[in-house]
């Protein structure tokens, strides 16, 4: 599996892809599967499933709270893989976003094998860079999985070139210097970073560039979609479920509305404005 066909389809439709994130096990394991199915159904082109981790240094308070809730309820690595299987069965490319230690503990090769057999498309790795990720790169290549590494506004040109060369599927451009979390305005650092990620990647790689961190509504998605190949949304989905509390049906309805708004946004491109 790979995310490539999803990006190609979006490109052929003249729009950006919508990439939606939710941690596994939040609000509980079956609840996350239900929520992810709604996100697929309402227009996400690619799904990222977070692996809840005790020390999520790149996440803001919203995702931290969701991950903690999942861990407190006993969510295990094997639950994450089962969640991948349930979502990938829809045919929508499904990635896992994870901090490194749970993968190392599970066994890098074993994780790659089990992710591939669950139908997963690959990994997004926020706390390893390609130069610290030799073991993952080897395992991903052996199991035909996407390797989504991150670039940041602070990355040198040399590192953007190195990172895009090592990535498969897409490269994740962090639009702001900061942790995850919904923001009221989109960043002016994102556009130049996307331009660099395109210009500095290997010739003929055609590696899509996804932009993450901060998008929370269709208008913001439209702004980002005007210059990026993918719009990544995480905290806004999590926030929607947190706000709904124990009313699961209301949470799923709100999630559908938000997904539809974002899906419309990536289809309008920059016509919307923030």
């Amino acid at each position, binding site marked *: 599996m790979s995310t490539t066909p999803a990006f190609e389809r979006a490109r052929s439709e003249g729009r950006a892809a919508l990439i939606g994130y939710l941690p596994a096990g939040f609000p509980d394991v079956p609840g996350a599967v239900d929520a992810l199915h709604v996100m697929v159904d309402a227009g996400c082109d690619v799904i990222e499933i977070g692996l809840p981790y005790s020390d999520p240094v790149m996440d803001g308070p919203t995702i931290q709270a969701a991950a903690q809730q999942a861990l407190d309820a006993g969510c295990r690595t094997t639950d994450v893989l089962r969640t991948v299987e349930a979502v990938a069965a829809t045919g929508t490319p499904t990635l896992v976003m994870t901090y490194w*230690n749970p*993968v*190392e*503990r599970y066994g890098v090769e074993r994780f790659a094998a089990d992710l591939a057999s669950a139908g997963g498309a690959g990994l997004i790795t926020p706390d390893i860079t390609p130069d610290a990720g030799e073991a993952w790169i080897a395992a991903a290549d052996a199991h035909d999985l996407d390797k989504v590494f991150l*670039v*940041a506004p*602070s*990355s040198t040109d040399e*590192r953007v070139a190195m990172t895009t060369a090592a990535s498969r599927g897409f490269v994740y451009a962090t639009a702001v210097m900061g*942790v995850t979390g919904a923001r009221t305005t989109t960043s002016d650092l994102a556009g130049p970073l996307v331009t660099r990620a395109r210009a500095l990647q290997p010739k003929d790689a055609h590696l899509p560039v996804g932009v993450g961190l901060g998008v929370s509504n269709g208008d913001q998605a439209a702004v980002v979609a005007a210059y990026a190949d993918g719009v990544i949304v995480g905290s806004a989905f999590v926030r929607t479920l947190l706000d709904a509390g124990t009313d699961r049906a209301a949470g799923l309805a709100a999630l559908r509305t938000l997904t539809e708004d974002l899906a419309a946004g990536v289809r309008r491109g920059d016509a919307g404005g923030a």
Partner: protein
Amino acid sequence: MTSTSRYDADERGYFGEGGQWGGRFMPEALVAALDELTSAWTEAMADPSFIGEFEAILRDYANVPSALYEATRLSEQVGCRVLLKREDLNHTGAHKIRNVLGQALLTKRMGKKRVIAETGAGQHGVASATAAAYLGLDCTVYMGAVDTKRQALNVARMQLLGAEVVAVDTGSGTLKDAINEAFRDWVSSVDHTAYLFGTAAGPHPFPTMVREFCRGIGDEARAQVLERYGRLPDAIAACVGGGSNAIGLFAGFLDDEEVAIWGFEPGGDGVETGRHAATITAGGSGVLHGARTYLLQDEDGQTVESHSISAGLDYPGVGPQHSHLAHIGRARYAPVTDAAAMEAMALLARTEGIICAIESAHAVSGALDVARELAATKGPDAIVLINLSGRGDKDMGTAIEWFGLGDAQKDVEA
């Protein structure tokens, strides 16, 4: 003053053959800052004016070099020479001042105006606030919410020194979560802020840089012992939480293969109870806070909460060079329980008139066992050197509770 030792990391920060330990497992957003820090630090350490300024500040402001003291009554009890490296007499009461003055001086050299720090017991936070005040830098200290309650006095000290103290209530609300929050701050403030990391852990270059700023402990002690006794000690000992005081001491002796090196870990209620912070003794290899090292984790690689009576040792990871030294057997690591550490604290107080930090009491307890063995095999001229990393004023609340002190009518049990 930069060392070259066969035990050093390679240029990417990996210790050991095949790069098993250390490294830099970090978000790309921080890589540029870590690269900038690495080159600024490397240049500074090669600049005699930087080294000269660092040494002058340590001497005139921090009371360094610290004294080496032969604990004569304690020596009589165990049967051989017990030496104490008196880091407890440094300004702010611990070895930590060496590291923060080094890093804060580097911050000024790099043209940054703000420092952030994490703290467990508050010692590194107080030292950071002190260095920031001394050098005119803004300072924010992240401290676990649980620890702000356990160490309210240190919170007040930091505030009096002009620092902002932020209580972190995510996760377990302790040191590891304070580190997470400091990293989160740093990701968004890195262009004008330096992260004064408090121990010889974390991503490259911190394990090596912190060791080099602390290595005066070992270099001074080695020269002091040689001058006074004409030979090296038989064994050296330090407590190990993250391991900055230990690696600073060990750095002076690593290449003296005849010197036995001991690190004493917080054994809490006993390693067998599961309530401890003996990372090397009972942990496994993993990645935490940017380095591959021994850590306390569950089957899924989730960090397990640590426990120690000493907040300064209450950390589920350890500096990667310690993992390397343990793995190859150059240094030995053993646990000391809360009870044994408290007993050693009382013993040192009554025998030598020195109230040490509970952290350091772990080293005293473990080292006295080593000294008794050495006395039996090598006789009274054997020398054991202990790094007394900090003083115990901050721990009086714990001591009052543990020993039932404070009632003038009552005899103290210990």
